[in-house]
C-alpha cells in the first residue's frame, strides 16, 4: 500500500516580520519623542475660549516653550524650542537673541503648500515682555500664524482665594 511521505516539519520564517516591526517601532519611538517634546511641562494659563485641537491639526509648526528661569527671577526666563528639522528632533534651550534666527531659518524651510505656525507655550507667570519677544521674532520672520497654548476652562481657585 502506498503511504504518503511524512510531512516535513514547517518553520515559519519570522525574519521579514521582525524587520517590519522594527521599522514601525523606530517610527513610533521618534513620533512619541516628538509628542513629548511638544508637551514640555509648562504651567499654561487658563482660557475658556481655548479650543482643544489635536496636535496633528496644527500642521507644520515650531513650538517655543517659555518657562520661568530656574533661579525664580521673574525678569528671566528660559526658551526651549521643540521642532523637527527634517532629520532630527530638536529640543534645546535657546538664547533670546537666537529665536529670530531659528524662526527665519525654519520659515525658509517650510513647505510651500503649508504655512508655518509658531506654537507659543508660555508659563502663566512669565512677564509679557518675554512672550512679546517671541511674537516680535515671529513678526520679523514673517510668521503670521501664532498659536497660543492654554488650558481649556476657567482657572481653578487656589486655597488662598486667588486663581491658578
Amino acid at each position: 500500500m502506498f503511504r504518503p511521505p511524512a510531512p516535513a516539519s514547517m518553520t515559519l520564517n519570522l525574519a521579514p516580520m521582525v524587520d517590519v516591526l522594527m521599522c514601525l517601532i523606530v517610527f513610533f519611538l521618534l513620533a512619541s519623542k516628538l509628542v513629548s517634546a511638544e508637551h514640555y511641562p509648562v504651567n499654561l494659563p487658563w482660557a475658556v475660549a481655548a479650543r482643544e485641537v489635536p496636535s496633528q491639526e496644527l500642521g507644520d509648526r515650531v513650538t517655543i516653550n517659555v518657562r520661568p528661569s530656574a533661579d525664580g527671577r521673574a525678569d528671566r526666563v528660559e526658551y526651549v524650542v521643540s521642532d523637527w528639522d527634517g532629520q532630527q528632533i530638536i529640543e534645546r534651550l535657546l538664547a533670546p537673541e537666537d529665536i529670530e534666527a531659528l524662526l527665519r531659518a525654519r520659515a525658509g524651510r517650510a513647505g510651500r503648500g503649508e504655512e508655518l505656525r509658531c506654537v507659543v507655550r508660555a508659563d502663566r507667570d512669565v512677564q509679557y515682555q518675554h512672550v512679546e519677544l517671541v511674537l516680535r521674532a515671529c513678526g520679523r520672520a514673517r510668521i503670521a500664524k501664532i498659536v497660543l497654548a492654554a488650558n481649556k476652562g476657567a482657572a481653578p481657585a487656589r486655597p488662598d482665594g486667588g486663581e491658578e
Partner: protein
Amino acid sequence: MKRAASSRETVPNLAPMVDVIMVLLVFFLLGASLDLVTQGVLQAELDPRSGPGPGAAVEIVAQVRIALEDVGDGAGAKIYVMERALADNTFEGLRAFLVQRREAGADPDNMVVVGAETTVRWRYVVKAMDAALQAGFRNVQFAVSFGGPADGDT
C-alpha cells in the same frame, strides 16, 4: 580518521522576540497616537502688515484697544479699554463690556488689540484675549513694539 558529524542548520527561534517587539510596538503606538494628544489653543494672527520694513509704518486702526498695566509686581493688572480704566477692573467686567459692544452692533471681525506693559504676567494677557473671544470677537491681536523711531505697534 574520524570526521565530525555535519553540523545541522540551526534556526533561531524568533517567536519570543516577536512577542517583545509587539509589546513595544503597542506601547509606542499608544504613546504617539497623535489624534489622542490634544492641546488647548488660542489662535492669533499677526497682521500681515506687521514686522519691520515699509509695511510697519502703516497705521492699524483697532476697533477696540485693551491695555493692561502691571499692579503690585505681578499680583494683578489694571485694565484699560480705549484708554479709559475699566470701572470694576475685572476680566469678567471686560467681557461684559465687550459683549455690550457686540450687542450694540460691533462687527465680530473688528480688530481687538491687546497691549500690555512689559511686566504684566502672561496669564492676564491671556485673560484679556479670552474675554474678547468669549464676547464673540474673532480678530484679536497683540500689540508688539518693534522699537525704532518709525515703528509703531502692530
